Structures are given as C-alpha cells and as structure tokens.
C-alpha cells in the first residue's frame, strides 16, 4: 500500500515524541506497538504527533484506544498533538479525548504537559 504508516521516535528532555507519518489504519498495529514500546522505555511523557497523519480510520482509532489502555495499565502518560480539526472532532465523537489530552501543537503539548 502506498501510504503505509511509518514512525519516527524523538527523545526530548521531558518527553518521547512519536511522529506518525502516513495512514493510521488496520495495518498500523505492529508498527504503532513497536513505536510505543520503544517510547515507553524512556519513562517520560509520550507524545503521539499526528501532524503527518492525514488519514485515520476507525481501525486506526481502535488501535490507538488499545494503546491508551495499555499505557494506563503501565502507568504511562500519553498525550496527542497536531490532529487536524476534523480528526479532533472525530476523536471527540468516539470519546477518545476523555482518556488522552489533545493539544494543538507539539509545543503546546510540551509546555502544558511536562
């Protein structure tokens, strides 16, 4: 598939940022889990950055839900940033924003959440 998800992990002083590049769909499970596991090693706040994720479907949202559940079990804090206003609305509709704060930008996430 053309726009298969890729991830990029950046370790900052107070947070580990996972950049999501591409589509977040049914086929993103393994790569998202791997990225989450790598990010969680640092013990810091985990920021999922959706800036370059232009297509997110219900299967992708289900995967993110499971990931948030795992984070809660492990006592890890996860926040989301840089979702388009459309996907902010969608994440709100399915109630996902009750379990993870959504910030407008990476900068906003870092200053507010750290």
């Amino acid at each position, binding site marked *: 598939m053309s726009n298969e998800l890729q991830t990029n992990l950046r370790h900052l002083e107070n947070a580990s940022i996972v950049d999501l590049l591409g589509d977040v769909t049914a086929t993103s499970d393994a790569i998202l889990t791997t990225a989450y596991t790598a990010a969680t090693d640092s013990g810091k706040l985990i920021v999922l950055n959706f800036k370059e994720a232009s297509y997110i*479907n219900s299967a992708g949202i289900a*995967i993110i839900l499971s990931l948030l559940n795992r984070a809660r079990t492990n006592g890890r804090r996860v926040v989301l940033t840089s979702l388009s206003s459309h996907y902010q609305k969608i994440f709100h509709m399915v109630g996902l924003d009750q379990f993870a704060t959504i910030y407008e930008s990476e900068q906003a996430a870092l200053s507010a959440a750290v």
Partner: protein
Amino acid sequence: MTHSKYRIELHVPSVLGFEKVAMDAASAVARQMGFEPTRVDDLRTAVAEACLNAMEHGNQFAQDSEVNVLMICEDDRLDVNVLDEGRGGTAPRITEPLTVDNPPLGTHGNMGMFLITQLMDEVEVTRLPEGSLVRMTIYLKHALASLAKIGLQ
C-alpha cells in the same frame, strides 16, 4: 449549477486502501456541488467507513467481490449509496463505540457505523437481496438537514 439528478457510479475491489478511491471520488463530487470543506471531510470519513465495512463484513474481502458506490446529486443534497454483496452473516448495525475502559481486542471498536450516523445528516440501512445498502445523505443547507433529522422535511 443545478445538480438535479446527476448520477456517479463507482466500483472498487474489496481490498484495503481502495476505500480511498471512493473517498476522493465522493469529495470531488461534494466539492463540485459546493459543500464546505468541513462537510467534505465529514463525507470522506463516512464514505471510507461504509466502504471498509462493505469490504470486510459485507464481502468478506472475497477476491472477486466489489463495493458499489452510487452517488446521486440533487439540488439540495448528495446521497451516497454503498452496496456490498452480502456475503457475511451480519448486517450493518449501529452500536456504542468501545472506550479505553473496554478497549477493542483487534481493530474493531464499533466505531464505523457510529461515526457514519454522527457525521451524516441521514443514514438508512437496507438489507437487499444482493447485499447490504448503506445510504448516507448530506444536505447543502444545514437548516434543511436539521429539519430532516427531526423528520419535518
């Protein structure tokens, strides 16, 4: 532009990824009719979810199966009909989405049909002899849509 009764028909294979062809075709139709960008985005998500359900639940991803997307442009609205081949034992049903408290095991969170009904002005599910039909309507004027939603139009 008078849209009355323009008809656009699209067939895509039951292969993940091809729902994007339907998304892009539907958004081109909606833009052509003058729908605002936010409504076009709503339609994109709804069409994608309806096609994904048709591919998976309706067609069981069968290799020779197709999803049929029929769009009708009317003066005041766009109807998008997504039809599958009814190869599964289920029919489209609207349920509450799963949450972090009760997370999905795999990639099914009951979110597709839920989102479709939230995003579209009208949704009608019909079980036809040939398969399931999900008909989604958006109105050009939100006021009309609200009236339609409470059954006054």
